[in-house]
């Protein structure tokens, strides 16, 4: 078996909250608290969860945009989380990013041509001026930007077109992996469909791996091969797409799926409405992080933190109900119609 393209092992990122006169650390935000997964070549793994679950922090940590608190990020067998900026820079080419906000992700004072040229120049991918121009045009065509787009400023484009520019910039580096951080969330329905289709085509055409970070479960289902569901800085369930959407095993996943409004008025679905709000990542609940909102929580959940375990082929769940011997109960309690 070959190595996966990207491995993340027990990743932790705590943000200190400074306070007081001396700027001492008062508390810590446990943004990401022990997350492990891998992404294979040409595969899409989606990180889903609600705001504050740490999914975007995972993406930014992989990109090396800040130092991580603990854990490992391994790219193609090589640990990259401890490298100096100088050693990391050439490796950055292999992992690119597309951000959510198509307005803040493009420098307003650079023309589209210069935006796309930046990674090509930085990584020395073009042999000559003509080659650079050729590469820029090829990438622009790949994302179906109009011919005259290159000489224009970002603010002249609509949100969807800007997102194409962002994707073009990522592709220009000729990466193996693109991290899409809510890349289609800010777009209108019809434009969203355009970008989703584009990303899927590009993946097939170029054999890209995608780490698709999103809260939109319907888009995720459409895009992904595997799904990791995050809650309060942890992965609570990770499985291939069909498994997650057909037979979720973690109560949070079930609730999340049943909460999504479906554009079919006739369907009368049984909905699990979770009570209360997500607890603060500063003062985490004891035991299982989900027990404060879980409809099936029992005594053990309040004291013992469940581990993410393999419960079936490729299906990982962090829930006490999924322990051997209790599986039957969970199947009844959590299963969806």
């Amino acid at each position, binding site marked *: 078996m070959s190595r996966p393209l990207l491995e993340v092992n027990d990743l932790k990122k705590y943000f200190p909250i400074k306070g007081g006169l001396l700027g001492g650390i008062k508390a810590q935000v446990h943004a990401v608290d022990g997350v492990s997964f891998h992404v294979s070549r040409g595969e899409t793994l989606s990180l889903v969860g609600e705001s504050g679950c740490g999914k975007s922090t995972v993406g930014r940590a992989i990109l090396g945009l800040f130092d991580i608190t603990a854990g490992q990020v391994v790219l193609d067998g090589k640990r990259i989380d401890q490298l100096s900026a100088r050693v990391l820079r050439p490796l950055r080419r292999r992992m690119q990013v597309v951000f959510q906000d198509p307005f803040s992700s493009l420098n307003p004072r650079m023309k589209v041509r210069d935006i796309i040229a930046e990674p090509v120049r930085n990584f020395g991918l073009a042999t000559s001026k003509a080659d650079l121009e050729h590469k820029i045009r090829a990438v622009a065509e790949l994302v179906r930007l109009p011919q005259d787009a290159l000489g224009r400023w970002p603010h002249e484009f609509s949100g969807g077109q800007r997102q194409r520019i962002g994707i073009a910039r990522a592709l220009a580096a000729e990466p193996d992996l693109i991290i899409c951080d809510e890349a289609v969330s800010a777009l209108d*329905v019809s434009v*969203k469909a355009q970008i989703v289709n584009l990303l899927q085509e590009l993946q097939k055409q170029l054999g890209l791996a995608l780490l698709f970070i999103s809260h939109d479960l319907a888009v995720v289902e459409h895009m992904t091969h595997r799904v990791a569901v995050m809650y309060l800085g942890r992965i609570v369930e990770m499985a291939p797409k069909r498994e997650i959407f057909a037979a979720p095993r973690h109560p949070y996943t079930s609730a999340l799926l049943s909460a*999504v*409004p479906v554009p079919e008025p006739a369907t009368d679905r049984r909905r699990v*409405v979770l009570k209360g*709000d*997500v607890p603060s990542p500063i003062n985490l609940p004891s035991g299982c992080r989900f027990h404060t909102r879980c409809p099936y929580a029992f005594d053990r959940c309040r004291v013992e933190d469940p581990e993410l375990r393999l419960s079936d082929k490729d299906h990982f769940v962090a829930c006490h109900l999924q322990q051997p011997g209790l599986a039957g109960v969970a199947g009844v309690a959590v299963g969806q119609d």
Partner: protein
Amino acid sequence: MPDSLPLLEVVDLQTHFRTPDGINRAVDGVSFTVKAGETLAVVGESGCGKSVTAMSLLRLVPEPPGKIAGRILFQGRDLLALTEREMKAIRGKELSMIFQEPMTSLNPVLTIGFQLRETLRLHEKVDRRTAERRAIELLDLVGIPESRRRMSEYPHQLSGGMRQRVMIAIALACSPKLLIADEPTTALDVTIQAQILDLMTDLKRRIGAAIVLITHDLGVVAEVAERVMVMYAGRKVEEAPVADLFRAPKHPYTQGLLGAVPRLGASLLDAESKLLEIPGVVPSLKQRIVGCVFAGRCPHATDICREAMPALDVKAPNHIAACHHAATEPAAA
């Protein structure tokens, strides 16, 4: 439902904005009615004029640069003919509004309790004690735990979902006849959105207020609305009961919109499907559009679409759409 006078009747509403480079026809001749106790959803993508429509109903559009024309008959009275003073008395009492981002519509330096009591005392002339009691009842009604303690808290101490509940409580304070909700759940996470949608359906049953729900989320529409009006580029292009609209959309734009939304669970039925794309972008509202507003992006557009503006015709019982070709392709989708 008995055939009585509608609660709200909007006739040929036009809201235009003067801008340095021309007049922006944000809403361009939209008519609709809302019956008492009914939920009408107004759907469309950003820039289609749905939010401006909502603001116009409450006369919250800044004038100038904005200008509202047409008639807005609320319980038989034309809101556009009222003085600002008379409008203030109606706003928040018989006609109230919930916004997308509760943080900006709640005053950050006043407690929740104060803001609720003020609304009550402003419109209902009740004494302090009664206002206090009613405020706590309202917080209970919208499902805020420990309502008595919450009264003395400030908006920033509450989570997004709780703030939206407070907004709903304030909106319901004077038992309005009509509630206008502009993207009330868009800023919320799905599990919190589910809570708020449940609350709204539940409250509607109990209080009987009519709701005009402005949203871009077709899933939300399907869950709470009874009738749907689809807007595109400042015009109404289709209106139908919710089940009919989702089952057999008549207008190509509605069809495109429904096809562009990925369905949860769809992958379990068939392996690989592509989302339907609507090519191109929304036309600029600063130029007067001749013909059908959707002609530039429509797969079925012909010469007549580019020359003549289609009328809103009845295509099926209670189902109207503005399309030259909808009748010739009966329920194609």
